[in-house]
């Protein structure tokens, strides 16, 4: 059988083209499924939902948010699931937390809010079983409670908080003013309570068990400090500026 150069060239070209065409599906120009546009309603992935809706304020695994981390093990251990759902869906009136449900002008479908809530609750369960028992919900103070006594709150503040936030709360070496009326105007009592319990470890603030070594704050202390802080608001004697949805959903 005789092979001439032109025929060898022809066969090589044909074989090359066949190879090239069969390999097309691996080439970088092929559109990837990940580039495909997905309707915002159709996103079902927790990481994506959290990343696009929550992470800017509440941080994520890699970033610190300016507001309380909702992945904080203490916070997740105490917040009831239905409260979390209501918080995401309706927001917190008087604070920067907007309602994310479509009914409240947000972009999230009910199913997507459920995905967020269920995954966060799932994280709480994992942390409780794998943790040292510190975040076991049996030992923790309740998520919400009615405000305590202002005078006792002042005492408790001096005992637990003044070391960082200064004697009168106007700021110390380690942390800034916690009685700034502007700050207090922008946050709810429940937010203050949650931060006292959960701390902001990512910013160096310990949780309620660690303010004083081997002497965790009692639930009464926490309620009292919240009352004392709230008394520094503009017009604190009037109704609270920020109303927490937990007032209606308190499960404790």
């Amino acid at each position, binding site marked *: 059988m005789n092979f001439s150069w032109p025929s060898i060239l022809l066969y090589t070209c044909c074989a090359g083209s066949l190879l090239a065409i069969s390999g097309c599906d691996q080439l970088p*120009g*092929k559109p990837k499924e990940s580039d*495909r546009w997905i309707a915002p309603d159709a996103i079902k992935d927790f990481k994506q939902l959290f990343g696009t*809706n929550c*992470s800017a304020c509440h941080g994520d695994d890699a970033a610190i948010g*300016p*507001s309380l981390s909702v992945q904080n093990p203490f916070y997740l251990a105490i917040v009831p699931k239905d409260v979390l759902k209501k918080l995401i869906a309706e927001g917190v009136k008087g604070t920067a937390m907007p309602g994310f449900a479509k009914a409240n002008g947000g972009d999230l479908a009910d199913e997507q809010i459920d995905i967020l809530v269920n995954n966060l609750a799932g994280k709480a369960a994992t942390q409780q079983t794998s943790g040292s028992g510190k975040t076991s919900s049996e030992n923790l103070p309740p998520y919400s409670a009615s405000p305590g006594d202002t005078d006792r709150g002042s005492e408790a503040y001096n005992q637990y908080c003044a070391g960082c936030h200064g004697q009168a709360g106007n700021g110390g070496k380690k942390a800034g003013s916690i009685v700034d009326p*502007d700050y207090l105007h922008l946050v709810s009592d429940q937010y203050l309570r949650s931060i006292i319990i959960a701390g902001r470890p990512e910013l160096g603030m310990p949780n309620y068990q660690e303010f004083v070594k081997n002497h965790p704050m009692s639930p009464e202390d926490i309620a009292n400090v919240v009352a004392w802080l709230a008394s520094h608001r503009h017009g604190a004697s009037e109704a609270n500026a920020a109303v927490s949805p937990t007032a209606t959903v308190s499960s404790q």
Partner: protein
Amino acid sequence: MMSTLRTVALWLERRLHLTKLWNQTAGHPVPASTGSWFYTFGSMTLTCFCIQILTGIFLAMSYVPSAAESYHSLELLNYSIPLGWVLRGIHYWGSTCMVIVMMLHMTQVFLWGAYKYPRELTWISGCILLFVTLGLAFSGQVMRFDTDAYWGVGIGASVAGRIPIIGEALVHILLGGPIIGSDALSRFFSLHVFILPGALLAFVSLHLRLVLGKGINEQPKPGVLVKRETYDKHYSEIIKREGVPFVPAAINKDIVANGILILVIVGLALFVGPNGPGTPADPTIQIADAKPDTPFLWLFACAALLPNGSEPWLFFVFPLVASLLLFLLPFITNEGEKHWRRRPVAVAIVILSYLGIGLLTYEAITGPWSPQMDAWSGLPIKAEYVKGRTPLELQGAVVFQDMQCRNCHAIAGEGGHRGPDLTQVATRMTNPQLVRQVIQGGGNMPAFGKNLSPEQTRALVAYLCSLHPPNVPPAREAVGVLKPIGETQPTPSPTPGNVAVRGEK
């Protein structure tokens, strides 16, 4: 066997006069000097057009020109139909290359003075081909019917609407109604698939007829001037002296150049891939960073950069004057010098046009003209800009995100770039200046006075005042601390957050 073939060939020849046709077309004599790389752009444009026709036919087999289904049919091509994405890629890059190669062809013709006597009509038909090609590129972009297409049509329609007297009727004809929907898509489909390709075929025929009739422009020599009285004789002498048949003597470089062009187009399709479809054409979707395709990016940049009120100039006067100049060019300089070395104005025009279009295209690709609509909820601030802040400053950062400041203002380079990056804003603006800017807006920023409570403003400004490097002090008032009008009690020390907006309450 051979004699049968010969009989058939002769039979056909006697009826079709193929030899004569060949001699008058592919075999027509051209100056030997035109067998140059610079003369290959015309045939490359034609090759692109053939690729577009071929891939377009196959695309039309799958594409559904309806607002409800077009997007899905493109997704089918991208993800389901075997090699459908390659087809889309070749069609997209073929279109981009066609515009680029056509521009190069036009530049060569302009610099070589080929538009001068007696090839005025060749130039004019070429200009018509340019506009038809741009029309095809634009209507092709509409076929994607994604957000780029939607807003592209919206801008196209508003440009058409600026034409006096007929503007409104023209928009109605183009869109088939007051909204951009299926009617508009069908009309652009007809334009893209029937009307414009038909026009292109007709004008390509005319263009080639003129090229054959008036001959390919010889390589100009400095000092050899074109004169209406003597040029025809001069050209026929050149053909007599150095004339060679186009095929096979002068076509070699065209074949190589076209081969490279095809490789480039297929390579781009395989390695870069097709364009889109992006976000669907739905004006209610906020997160849509619409941009036109490459040939129109420079216009997009013009529209974004020009000062307010100059739109009539950009979208009506400029295109009108530019088109008139383009069409009348062969009559403005009909005779004289052809060589670019003796035509500095022509060279300057080319350099300025390329620089202008190139820089505007670059600006359009990199320009941060659209806010990053999801930054406020999906882009955390880097840890170093959160750590070490007071509770008020942290709440200010929350306000910063919640009020969607981040959509236009980046911190540490992340976020929108519509407004200035605020990473070190405290080094250049004082607390009162920031308060004024937030409340009153200005410099293209909306006023937030009505949307922010005094507490939110103070918190926000407190946070902004914390944005300075540790070794650079924040900006301070040259005149000392400002006292709000009518306030008698001593003004508190200017720590971030407590100077501001007392006058408002």
